[in-house]
Each structure stands twice: as structure tokens, then as C-alpha cells.
């Protein structure tokens, strides 16, 4: 456990050390949030609601999006792809540590800093647009939201890990990973609430694990999901997570075997 704690701390320092990269990352994400917020505001216009979202709820959706993006979408997939294709991965494999645990520790460090930065940005935005925010009163909502976000984050981590593990077989796994991440962001509701989509398309997406990553936690936060339904979806998400974990570790093990067979 101590090893992972040390890895976490080192990764924290490293992220802070590369300050321009950090600032640039944040600025970029911030721009996306501002444009999404503006577009939705223009959509609502002077109507009371749009697609069942009030103005306050819409703003909250976008702000929660900023935090969730920082918390959920910060995997280690690209690093894994890089380390497999350069062969650096071997140096981890001979050490007495779990690569997944190690990557998770690094990822956690990244999340810590980015969530802190995202919270800061959200605070700033709230000051700028004044009031008009939807804050759930029921503490249970906060707990549910927290649990959902945690599961989402792990779900993303393992899904991304699974796709990145393709690098064991081909040096070109960057393409599929890129494609996967783009698709995922849309399907998860990270650009717009899925309510906007035609009912058939939305139902199709709801049968996949993706909406659980952003759309679902935000709706819990906005108290748009009845408690019972919430619990049911939470267990669905847990099931998806278990499946993703199993798939990721299986692919990983097979990949390792073929990697070892080819002698790296």
C-alpha cells in the first residue's frame, strides 16, 4: 500500500511541476464549459424550461459536467499505450507491484489536482453568473451522487484500460483509443444532456454503460431520478463496473501472455 501512496505523491508533484501544461489543460476545459453554458442559455432564451431543465438546472448541469470531466475522464490509457509500444512496461512487470494499482495511484493524483482546479473554476463561474444554481437539500442526494461519480470514474478507468491494452497486439492502438474516447464523451452526455436525442437513440444508448458516466450522476444530483430508480441504476452501474473490471483484467492477462511470447 505504501508503494502506491508514494507513487501518488510523486505524481502529484510532477503534475504541479509542469505548471504551464496544467494551466493550459484547465483553460481548455474551461472554454468548453463556457461555450456549452452559453449555448444552452441561448436555447432556453426566455422560456421557463427547455427539455424539462430550468435555467438553474441547466447551469448546474454544465458546472457538474466540469467537475465530472476532471474526475471521470482522466485515465491513464495514453500512458499505457506509450509504455507498451516503447517496451518500458517491462520495467514495471518485474517489480512486485500491480500495474493497475500503480496506474490507479497516478490517476488519482491527476484527479486530485484537476478536481481541485475544477472546483475553483466552478466557484469563479458561480460568482460571475450570480445565484441561480440548483443545490440539492437532501443529504442523501449528495451521498448518491458521490457514489455514482466514484463508480463512473472506476468504470472509465477500466474501460479505457481495456482499449489501451490492444497495444499489446498492435502498435496502432492509439487510433481505436481516440475513437473510443470521442464516442464515449458524446454517449456519456459530456457535451449535452442525452434528453435532446430522439427517444429511440437515447434508449439504445441507455443499454450501454456510457450514460452512467456523466449523464446519470448529474441527473441524480439534479434530483431528476426517483430514489428507487436511482438505487436500481446504481446497481446497474456497479454491474457494468464489475464487467468492465473483468474484461480489462482478462484482456490484460492475455496481452501479457502474447507480449511475453513475442519477447516484448
Amino acid at each position: 500500500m505504501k508503494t502506491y501512496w508514494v507513487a501518488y505523491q510523486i505524481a502529484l508533484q510532477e503534475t504541479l511541476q509542469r505548471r504551464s501544461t496544467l494551466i493550459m489543460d484547465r483553460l481548455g476545459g474551461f472554454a468548453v464549459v463556457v461555450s456549452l453554458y452559453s449555448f444552452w442559455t441561448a436555447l432556453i432564451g426566455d422560456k421557463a424550461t427547455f427539455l424539462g431543465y430550468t435555467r438553474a438546472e441547466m447551469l448546474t448541469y454544465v458546472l457538474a459536467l466540469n467537475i465530472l470531466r476532471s474526475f471521470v475522464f482522466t485515465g491513464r490509457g495514453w500512458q499505457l499505450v506509450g509504455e507498451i509500444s516503447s517496451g518500458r512496461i517491462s520495467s514495471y512487470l518485474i517489480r512486485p507491484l500491480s500495474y493497475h494499482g500503480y496506474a490507479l495511484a497516478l490517476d488519482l493524483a491527476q484527479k486530485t489536482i484537476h478536481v481541485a482546479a475544477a472546483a475553483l473554476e466552478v466557484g469563479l463561474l458561480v460568482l460571475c453568473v450570480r445565484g441561480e444554481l440548483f443545490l440539492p437539500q437532501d443529504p442523501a442526494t449528495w451521498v448518491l451522487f458521490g457514489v455514482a461519480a466514484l463508480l463512473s470514474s472506476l468504470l472509465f478507468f477500466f474501460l479505457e484500460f481495456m482499449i489501451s491494452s490492444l497495444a499489446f497486439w498492435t502498435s496502432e492502438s492509439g487510433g481505436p483509443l481516440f475513437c473510443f474516447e470521442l464516442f464515449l464523451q458524446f454517449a456519456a452526455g459530456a457535451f449535452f444532456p442525452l434528453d435532446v436525442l430522439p427517444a429511440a437513440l437515447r434508449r439504445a444508448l441507455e443499454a450501454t454503460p456510457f450514460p452512467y458516466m456523466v449523464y446519470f450522476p448529474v441527473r441524480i444530483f439534479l434530483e431528476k431520478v426517483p430514489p428507487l430508480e436511482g438505487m436500481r441504476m446504481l446497481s446497474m452501474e456497479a454491474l457494468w463496473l464489475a464487467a468492465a473490471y473483468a474484461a480489462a483484467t482478462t484482456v490484460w492477462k492475455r496481452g501479457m501472455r502474447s507480449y511475453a511470447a513475442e519477447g516484448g
Partner: protein
Amino acid sequence: MKALLAKYGRIWLRTSAMALQAQLTYRLGSFGFLLGKMIRLFFFFAFMAAVFQHVETVAGYSLVETALFFMTFNLIDMTAQILFRCVYGARRTVNEGDFDFYLVQPCSPLFRMTCSTVDFLDVVTIIPVIVMTGMVFARLPPLGWENYAAYGLLMVNGVGLIYAIHILVAALAVRTQELESAIWIYRDVMFMGKFPMDVYAPAVRWALTVGIPIAVMTTFPAKALLGRLSAGWVVYALALTAAALPLSWMFWRASVARYTSSSS
């Protein structure tokens, strides 16, 4: 002068052909990237279409007009990506020492750093964009030739301004080897140009027109086509590019003079 152009033309054709060859060796990877780009395009278009199922206008623009903004954004953005693709590898070019070779060879290092390769994936992706833009154009009311002329002029102007930013990014890569890639912030901020500027709050709109002139690059042409851009703004846009290009070039020169080359 003519000989110089012919020389750079030859180099450009050569590197482009080489880039195509290299890309063809990465079939799976290229396919992934291509599919990802198509997905992004499709989702955004579907999203816009879906939005207009629920509203008549956004910030005073109809569906066709909003689509015009979106397609024009894509045209300009992709043209820039096709031409200036290699900036995306600027950091790697510097870190792996390729830039050292650029500097000792009798060919402008800026040229090689910013526009010596063509991304053929984007050449493939721009085809549906052109087709879709044609469809949008067909649905527009008849417009005077000055509108089309202004549209074309401002598009070229926009690409020029984007080139100035790419020079800046390349210079940053030479100057601080720490910067992960400044290009990604540009990508994220450009995101804001997908929507007509009128959706933004006045302060943001002002920032996007004068501060980081995304509006000048992406939404001015469409606005001019619709006859909603005053002559004053057209002059401003042209003047901005005329100033930005030499300024960024000076910054580039200063950065190269301070270049330290990574130790081998």
C-alpha cells in the same frame, strides 16, 4: 523568388508523399482516427438537428443559419488541420532532435515545423463536410455576390490568422520544452467557434472577438455571408491577420535564437 517557391513546392510535395506512405503503414490506427473524427462530426450535426426539433431559433438564427456557422467552422478548422498538421508533433520534433536537423538544413525550419506534411485523414474527412456545406448553401435565400466574396475573403483571412497561432505554438514548443502541447488548448478554445457568437454573453463575445479572436477565424465568414457583418469588422479582421502574422513570426525568431536543443 520563383526558384524559391518551386523549391518549397518540391519539398512540400515530397514530405506530403512521405507522410501518406507513413500513414498507410498504420492502417488500423488511421482508421480509428478517421472514424473518431466522423463520429464527432455526426454527433454534433445530429445534436444540432435534435435541438431544432424543440426550438425555432437559437439567438435569432434558424436551423439552416446555425448549420452554416457550424459547417463553416469545420471547413476552416479542417483546412488548417490539413495544411498545418505537423505543428501537432512540434514537441516531439523538438524532444527527439528532429528540429536539430531542421536547423542545419537549408530550408526554413518554420516551414518544416508547421506545414511540411499533409494529413490525408483530414483530406478524407473534409469531403463530407464540403458536401454538407453545399447542402446548407442550397437552403440559403439568394444572396448578392459581395456576400460570397466577403465569405471567401474572410475564410482565407481566418486560415491566415490560424496560421499565426500555429507559429506561436511552434515557437512555444521550441522555447519551453516543458509545455506538453500548447496546440490542445487551441483545439479546446476553438470549440467555442462552433456556435454563432451571439449565443455568448457580451463579455465573452467581446473576448472572443478582440482577446482570443476565435470569432474572427470561424464565425465572421458566415456572418458576412448572411449580411450581418459591418464593413468596419471586415477591415478589423483583415488588419488583425496582417498584424498577427509578422508578430508571431518575430516571436518565432526570438524563440529559435534562444533554442537550447535537448541534450543527446
